[in-house]
């Protein structure tokens, strides 16, 4: 049976179709989910895609967090369902307190779009098991509110429990604390990532196809589960 991976569309989501494409390329079935729905449509995993939900007005992710579907998602996430928040999706997860910390304005105050080198620090999460620990990959980053911050205790907790999933290498594009590009919850099923793996799934349109691993990881987990 193919894994069913839901992709939520909020008003202002931009990378929902791209995330669905990546899911398909990874061999799973993308299932569109509407923010105002109240059912998760029996999906095995969920992606919160990039974009500017509600225009990123107020704060990135602040309004999307209150979408009806988010309540269901929060329950499912606490129950162990794999959830990946990419860029705006990461912001929504932080605003929902499903992940700690916050994403604030880039240190440069500019939107930054570039092919970014990352190091996968934790290859045990539901979304990174296709990678090796320490593996370096190049995938796009594109955001203006990508600077990850957390208080010192939270940071210490993330570091000591191996919950930093990926770190920027060479350049820290947004001023994130400790070069953090992505983190996960304690159980490792909820991952937030600033860069965009769904834009690195085909060499033709991305800087590499090294982002595909995030999507094959969750498929692998479904198969092995």
């Amino acid at each position, binding site marked *: 049976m193919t894994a069913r991976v839901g992709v939520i569309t909020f008003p202002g989501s931009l990378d929902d179709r791209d995330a669905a494409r990546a899911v398909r390329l990874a061999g799973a079935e993308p299932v569109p989910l509407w923010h105002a729905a109240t059912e998760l449509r029996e999906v095995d995993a969920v992606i919160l895609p990039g974009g500017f939900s509600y*225009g*990123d007005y107020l704060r990135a992710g602040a309004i999307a967090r209150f979408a009806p579907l988010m309540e269901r998602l929060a329950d499912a996430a606490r129950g162990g369902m794999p959830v990946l928040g990419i860029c705006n999706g990461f912001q929504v997860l932080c605003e929902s307190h499903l992940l700690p910390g916050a994403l604030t304005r880039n240190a440069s105050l500019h939107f930054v*779009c570039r092919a970014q080198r990352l190091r996968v620090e934790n290859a045990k999460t539901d979304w990174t098991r296709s990678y090796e620990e320490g593996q370096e990959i190049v995938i796009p980053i594109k955001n203006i509110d990508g600077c990850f911050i957390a208080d010192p205790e939270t940071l210490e907790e993330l570091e000591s429990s191996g919950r930093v999933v990926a770190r920027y290498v060479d350049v820290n594009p947004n001023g994130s604390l400790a070069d953090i590009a992505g983190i996960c919850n304690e159980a490792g099923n909820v991952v937030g990532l600033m860069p965009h793996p769904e834009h690195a799934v085909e060499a033709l349109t991305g800087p590499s196809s090294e982002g595909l691993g995030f999507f094959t990881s969750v498929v692998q987990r479904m198969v092995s589960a």
Partner: protein
Amino acid sequence: MTTYGTEPVRPAVDTVARAAETPDAALPYAELGMNDEEYARVQRILGRRPTSAELAIYSVMWSEHCSYKSSRVHLRKFGEKAPHSDALLVGMGENAGVVDVGNGWAVTFKIESHNHPSYVEPYQGAATGVGGIVRDILSMGARPVAVMDSLRFGAPDAPDTRRVLDGVVRGVGGYGNCLGLPNIGGEIVFDACYGANPLVNALCVGVLKPEGIKRATAPGPGNQVILFGAGTGPDGIGGASVLASATFDEASHQKRPSVQVGDPFMEKLLTECCMEIFAEDLVVGIQDLGAAGVSCATTELAAAGTGGMDVNLDLVPLRDPTLRPEEILMSESQERMMAVVEPAKVARFLELCKRWDVPATVIGAVTDTGRLRMTWRGETIVDIPPGTAADEGPVYERPYERPADLDQLQADGPDRLPRPSTPEQLRDTVMWLAGAPNLADKSFVTSQYDKYVQGNTVLAMPDDAGVVRIGDGPQGIAIATDGNGRYARLDPYAGAQLALSEAYRNVAATGARPLAVTNCLNFGSPEDPGVMWQFAQAVEGLADACQTLGVPVTGGNVSFYNQTGTTPINPTPVIGVLGVHDDVTRRIQISFNVEGMSLLLLGE
């Protein structure tokens, strides 16, 4: 209930009946940019003086910006000299041209200027420039798939350039990024002549099925007219005539005209909403609201349809309830569209708008009266034949004359420049060129633009042309924009041709077959015979070159009055060329990315 003096005192509405009774009442047509002759023409058309609402409509529709009154006689050449092309599905005259690219796909693209607003308020000016061109593409029935921006700024070290450049780039990026449109290319040129006249030309390209082409027309009496998108506020009131058509001088800068402010989030909702509306075939006609807002949409839709329309202006949703009808008619509030919908489909249309949180209101209906009639507070305030405003504006044959200084300028050739002769000097020259702002790396700008979104970008900055995949591939399109004001200043005929051939080569260099041309013609005041000569020459040059190359002009835009005092900018035709790739996997990049390849130089 009796109220004593609590109602604000407001001037009475100028109704059609009142206009007939008071033929001699004075209206401020001159302030609205209309001359005596034009005003007299309106009176002849109506057989009476216009109401103030009617004057609002005529003044914006007959402004240079909307009516092309100075350029029209020249632009005809594009049509007259157009090479035959089977690919052309919609030519000049619609919101944007459409070309058939094969395999059941069509592409629509167009470039437009937002120069003056971008000087007054760079962020919002540039942002709303992107927003406007995207709605043009949307209104053809297409899904917008990419944007490009062609920019000109003053000298890099001029004090104002930083403000303008920073704001414009943030605006282009802020709007396009939020809309989810990859920015796949453009230009940035610095030249002192653009100091107080920056150029912001934005291009959008969209993809559709040929059978899904939509038109700006209101046929079928009884069909409902729906205004949807953002509310109407006092944005850029008078902007179309004051901002875009009047010479930019100290006085208008002092006046701080009300600028348009964009809401890209609303435009994203509007886009997705339109996609679903088109997929269910719910409209018989559609038009975006740009400059001249409701005036433009109602007159153009009505004129291109059965010919009549009744509109109740009280139904227009207002952001500011104190707006007068004239202001409602002239408001340039962004992110609005107007659709013509069969009565049976209205409910579904409104349902889809609701799903996307897009306000939508039925404000009128199509009629067969041949008249555009509008009421406000129960009174008729507009009653005109819509075509007279939309299509029958004044046409001027402005005098033109070769600039007197041109011989001298042309004589000042490169042979007078010192040549580097020693290795040292050569080295210095190379270093100087590499460091010149016009040649230097532009990634400080392009890194602020999302080029990956939608996942179809095959080539973008720094390649010669942007290439995007369409459908599921392997088909794709390539687009490049180019323009060189210095060449055009020396010889506008050849300059326009050089711009075209550069864009054409850039598209071809990716491996694409060039198919169609769009253009944005940025010039000084058409009232200056020297400028008018430059304009005529550039159009002629472009039309001739298009004929030779066998590619039709499918649309474009003219921006006049780019001048400071009496000094015009260098004439700057910016040309966009669209090409098609049968297989994007075979695209050619600019980088030498395979070892051992031979390097050949073609041409002389």
